[in-house]
């Protein structure tokens, strides 16, 4: 029966190719527009490290100006000062902890054919690698001893290792950065988190790092961070004055393996700030935060406003396309009422007619959905051309392909259901009379 109805459906669709094309195109465009924008929103908003996002927490301490809050929404500052980062690292109350900041260093390759180049990296602690779990191709991170003794060690990313050592195992080799030799302890395999969640302040879609070096080593060499720096009061002159200031320029992450530990750590932060208040720091009311990865992404509004607006607009567009298809199908089925009346008179039951027409509308919906999926790929290519930063996020994943299939089937059924129901309500006698 199915194949017979399917053939009937195809024949009926072939009878008005323009109308059919219009209905399929409408659904396809609506699906493509909404899926393209939804994919962007989904990927930007999805958990970048699902297996441990609940255990990684971002530390915020409100060391801001007593006269005005850090922002209008009452959030504490989005970074911490050197002084606080050091105090928290020394206390070492979390399971793992890493202060970090963005740094730019000139790399002077041994190979004379490679010109010196400026490279963006991250100064952090050895725990970074255990916390964020970048995959290693060779070697590994550095240990606490290297942190303590300002070790001149470096972890290279895959791309940097390609550039400097042609992709070989370079563990033990030397890299000269800003006149100082660092020894390679590890080389990462391909690692591109879609959202650079560990440093949202300097761009959620920023390019990944090119190297990682110990924080303590960079501080020892008085290299200023190249990321965002904000100060609310005067600093004493010089490097020591800067380090002692309330300027915020570092990110601080902790790993807390249970909710109880997270609660303890939050209490510890409050105690720490209350202690500091006695010393005359932290003039604002107590406002510390310990958000996990997903809360932090949400707090920082990682999904751009434009993408949210596009999602809203594209779903309204899909609604128009669906209404359009419903109207056209309705017109088409009403036009066939003579034929339907005849079939009813010849003994076809309502469920049979329903099956026949829902198959016909499903053909439209499914071809629209399939075509829409193709157009979605095209849409994402367009997005990658238009937004250079989105290269990493404008890709379909399996969840989104599945969502497209579900959405288009739903759209097809929704569009076909009412016209089909209407077609089945036709009384055979009334239609046959006029013939």
């Amino acid at each position, binding site marked *: 029966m199915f194949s017979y109805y399917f053939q009937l459906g195809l024949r009926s669709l072939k009878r008005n190719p323009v*109308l059919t094309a219009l209905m399929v195109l409408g659904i396809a*465009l609506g699906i493509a527009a909404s899926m393209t924008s939804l994919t962007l929103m989904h990927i930007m908003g999805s958990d970048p490290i699902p297996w441990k996002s609940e255990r990684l927490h971002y530390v915020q301490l409100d060391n801001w100006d007593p006269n*005005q809050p850090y922002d209008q929404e009452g959030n504490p500052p989005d970074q911490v000062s050197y002084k606080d980062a050091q105090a928290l690292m020394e206390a070492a109350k979390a399971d793992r902890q890493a202060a970090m900041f963005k740094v730019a260093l000139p790399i002077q390759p041994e190979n004379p054919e490679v010109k010196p180049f400026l490279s963006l990296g991250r100064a952090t602690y050895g725990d970074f690698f255990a916390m964020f779990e970048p995959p290693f191709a060779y070697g590994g991170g550095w240990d606490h001893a290297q942190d303590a003794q300002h070790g001149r060690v470096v972890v290279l990313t895959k791309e940097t290792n390609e550039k400097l050592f042609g992709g070989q195992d370079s563990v033990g080799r030397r890299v000269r950065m*800003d006149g100082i030799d660092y020894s390679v302890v590890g080389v990462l395999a391909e690692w591109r988190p879609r959202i650079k969640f560990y440093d949202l302040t300097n761009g959620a879609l920023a390019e990944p790092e090119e190297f990682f070096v110990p924080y303590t080593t960079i501080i020892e060499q008085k290299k200023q961070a190249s990321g965002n720096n904000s100060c609310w009061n005067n600093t004493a002159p010089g490097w020591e004055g800067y380090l002692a200031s309330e300027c915020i320029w570092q990110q601080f992450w902790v790993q807390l393996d249970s909710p109880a530990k997270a609660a303890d750590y939050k209490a510890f932060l409050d105690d720490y700030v209350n202690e500091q208040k006695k010393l005359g720091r932290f003039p604002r009311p107590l406002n510390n935060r310990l958000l996990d990865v997903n809360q932090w992404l949400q707090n920082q509004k990682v999904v751009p406003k434009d993408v949210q607006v596009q999602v809203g*607009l594209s779903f*309204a*567009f899909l609604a128009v396309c669906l209404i359009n298809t419903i109207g056209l199908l309705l017109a088409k089925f009403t036009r066939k009422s003579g034929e339907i009346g005849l079939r009813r008179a010849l003994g076809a039951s309502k469920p049979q007619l329903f099956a026949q027409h829902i198959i016909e509308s499903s053909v439209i919906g499914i071809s629209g959905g399939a075509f829409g999926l193709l157009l979605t790929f095209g849409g994402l290519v367009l*997005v990658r051309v*238009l937004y250079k930063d989105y290269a990493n996020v404008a890709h379909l994943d399996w969840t989104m392909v599945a969502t497209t299939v579900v959405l288009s089937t739903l759209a097809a059924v929704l569009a076909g259901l009412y016209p089909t129901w209407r077609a089945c309500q036709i009384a055979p006698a009334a239609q046959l009379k006029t013939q």
Partner: protein
Amino acid sequence: MEIRPIISALMRSKVALVLIGLQIALTLAIVCNALFIINQRIETMNRPSGMNESDTFTIGSNGFGDGFSTKNTFVEDLALIRSLPGVRDATPTNTLPMTNGGWSEGVFMAPGQKVSTTITAIYFMDEHGIDTFGLNLIAGRNFKPEEITVRDRGSVDWPPGVIITKALADKLYPGQDAVGKSVYLDYDKPAQTILGIVDRLIVPWPEGFSFNGDHSVVENSVLVPQMTAYGNSTRYLIRTEPGRRDELMKTVEAKLAESNHGRIVRGVKSVEKVRSECYANDRAMMIILGTVIFCLLTITALGIVGMASFWVTQRTKQIGTRRALGATRASILRYFLAENFLITTGGLLLGAFLTYAFSLWLMAHAQEAKLLPWHYVPVGFVCLWALGQIAVLGPATRAARVPPAVATRSV
């Protein structure tokens, strides 16, 4: 023209009526809001930076190793660049408008004032800065060569004299001549005297700079007569004779690289490129919304054509009867045009509500969005009326050609 028969005919196919009306309503809501967003983006993108953008480019360098002297590099590079034929002028600088990276400071009116009056962007430059940027000095004077100092790492002092933009001057000293008056970049330190006022220079962050929600601070800039010689980086803005920019970008890059091997020359970029990168996301949004509007209008128009054709076919017999009873072709045509006009109007009335519902949703989701100005709605009405009439013209013409004899046939 009788409206009543049209309405009573329409009432017999209420569902189709509701569907078309809803489609038109949604179309109006989307098109109005999308057009409003596009126009806002155009406004943002057209904001003048206040500087010469066609003949200017920037270039920077990062030295490495202990032997690198940033101060000497500044002096040597500037002498070299200014001596090149085709270069009109050059200045050291820390940043440029539209680069989205720079230095901002609170501005105070009195020593000890705890809460800043407003905020400003800081542009470091020397006495060649005004000419290189192509700024229009409308009051006071330029910096003198002897006023240019070197800002060391960790320096917390500000020089005694600065130049500010007109927007900032108007905010600090409304209705007065600000030249010679004081401003504090640091409330704990001596004041800065306002040496001069330039007409306009926008901040490096044209879309993200605000002070307690006030976006008019986008033209608050202070020019500070210093060279920032800390770290190992230097940056310059170079203005060429008209038409020689692209050629000189290559020359300057090569000459700087040649002059000192202990550094990386980088970031050569024309200010036009800086502008286009700054607004790339706005342009993308405009293209996407434009595409949506185009597809939407096409779909809606084709939908109207489809429905009207169907109605014409369905009513062939009635049309024939009317023709046989003496209706002219023109009156048949008018009937379908009027019918479409009525349906569209109904949809548009509903659409006006949807448009504002949508606008409110946008305001809730994008903090900076404004309520849609009312005039978009009547413009949208006119456009969709026109679209509906054009779409229905084809099927209506076909209806008008139905011969009266059809009435006498049985099918």
